[in-house]
């Protein structure tokens, strides 16, 4: 008889709606500044702090800005690459740690990049790349982002593994599945929510990472945060706000589309 069932019977007893209140409040907190950003992107004034009427003029300017578009492209490549590395390696690492180690040191070592100050990692990596004569480029940023992103995925997956029922893996081995098959077919699906959460986090962090990217990219391949940082040295302009608004819009649309798609192909559970 199972003692731990990740998704035991759906309960007929409805949870009180009240538990959604903090969630909504949380979203208000998260989206209030974003709302400001969107509103200010329609500000006619150059100056962020003064409202001078409604204007759409920043949007066309934005699209005309090659640097921004290049930065956006680079960022997406880096974030996707780093997330891919992190998701795969982080999951494997978490699995290895949980199965083959006991002490906390290796675990700490694996998680450390998540908590290393960016500067240390950025400058350290640059020094390393330089010593090894690695030419800088997007690949070096991907590798660098992969380092901390892996650590985030590892940590989250490990936290999820803590309560996993090991008899499921045993059952799989018993039925003749080797380590790989067991991992793919049994362990992985169990860990999925942790992996998804970790991947989301990795992607999110990579998209917005500045310091490490600055140090490890080639100067000709800036990511979007690098572009934006140099732009906002005088403070945020409406153009940048417009950029943020568009990023938001694109993300929302992508997510909804992905959601639709998965529902159509019936892979959501």
């Amino acid at each position, binding site marked *: 008889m199972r003692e731990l069932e990740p998704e035991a019977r759906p309960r007929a007893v409805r949870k009180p709606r009240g538990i959604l209140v903090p969630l909504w409040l949380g979203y208000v907190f998260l989206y209030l500044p974003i709302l400001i950003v969107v509103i200010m992107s329609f500000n006619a004034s150059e100056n962020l702090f003064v409202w001078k009427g409604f204007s759409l003029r920043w949007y066309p300017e934005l699209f005309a800005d090659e640097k921004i578009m290049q930065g956006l492209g680079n960022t997406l490549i880096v974030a996707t690459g780093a997330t891919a590395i992190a998701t795969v390696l982080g999951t494997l690492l978490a699995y290895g740690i949980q199965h083959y180690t006991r002490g906390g040191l290796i675990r700490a070592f694996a998680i450390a990049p998540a908590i290393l100050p960016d500067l240390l990692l950025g400058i350290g990596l640059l020094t390393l790349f330089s010593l090894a004569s690695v030419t800088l480029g997007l690949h070096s940023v991907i590798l660098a982002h992969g380092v901390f992103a892996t650590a985030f995925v590892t940590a989250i997956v490990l936290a999820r593994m803590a309560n996993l029922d090991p008899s499921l893996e045993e059952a799989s081995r018993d039925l003749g599945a080797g380590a790989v098959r067991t991992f793919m077919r049994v362990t992985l699906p169990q860990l999925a929510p942790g992996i998804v959460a970790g991947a989301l986090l990795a992607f999110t962090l990579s998209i917005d990472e500045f310091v490490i990217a600055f140090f490890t990219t080639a100067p000709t391949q800036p990511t979007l945060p690098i572009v934006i940082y*140099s732009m906002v040295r005088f403070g945020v302009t409406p153009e940048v706000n417009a950029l943020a608004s568009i990023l938001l819009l694109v993300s929302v649309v992508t997510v909804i589309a992905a959601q639709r798609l998965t529902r159509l192909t019936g892979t959501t559970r």
Partner: protein
Amino acid sequence: AETLDPNADLSEQTLTVSIWADYSPEDLAEQFEAATGVKTTIVNHTTNEDIVAKLTASADSGIDVAFVSGQYAQALGEQGLLAELDKSLIPNEEHLYPEALELAYDPGNVYSEPYAWGTTGLCYRPDLTGYDPTSWNDLLNPKPELVGKTTMLSTDRWLAEPALKAAGTSINTTDDDELAAAKEQLLETKSTLLAYDDTTFYSKLVSGEAAMVQAWDGWCNYGIAEDPSIKFVVPEEGSDLWVDTMTVLESSKNKEAAMAFLNYILDPEVQTWVAENILYKVPNKAAMEALDPALIESYPTLGITVDELMEQEAIVDLGEDTLKYVDLNAEVLATN
């Protein structure tokens, strides 16, 4: 330094130039490419500090030309990271003010050519201050009604500047007692500040959050652009002379093109653009003389003469002793 080939085929070279954003004409790369055939990429950095760190940490950062302020050029040069300039390839140097060839951080412009220069002072809104400040003490010990309505720069050497200058000491001092006295003053001042702000101080003036801010002259102009009543003053105790310079990296494999780039920038026409569009003074005599007088009317800081500028003290790198300022900054900022 290696000898450069004056007849090198520039169209075979490529150039990567790192400069602050919005600090050069937008089509600079195209223009330069059209003029010389060098395939050019302009990239941006955010601060002196970050580009220097990057240049220091890597043997070859991929950057050929870097724009940094004078004292940073000095430091990079002394580390051997900069190429000595081949003046034969930079004939346009002749357009510079003579003073611009003998600046303290790099006498003779061995490693750097000046791009823009200026000073630091008080940028304020007369309608909010109710009077015209004249001294660093107006900032350091503000009138009661201005408490909570002033900002100071917090980085590098500018934090200490008002206190040093008000006390009549050099902004390049390394004397512990003088620094200790400055620290006392700065700590006292800290409680009267709205904030330390190195980036958006002019916005705070425009929005009315602040009445008076320590500001670089060029950035005060951004405030004036939005609110013409804003004024700038160089305090009577004197101030600094800062210079943003162009340097060529020793690691560059395109030094001929780099020299050509520096030369191109020093062309009076180009530098006139800089002054007119980013509202910074340039050390280029010909360019300054070509400036539209109406502009100087609107932005009085552009009217500051070379002589007035030369009265200010140039900031130089202090090497080892830079730490004293770092510690001073940290102590002031960390004390509540």
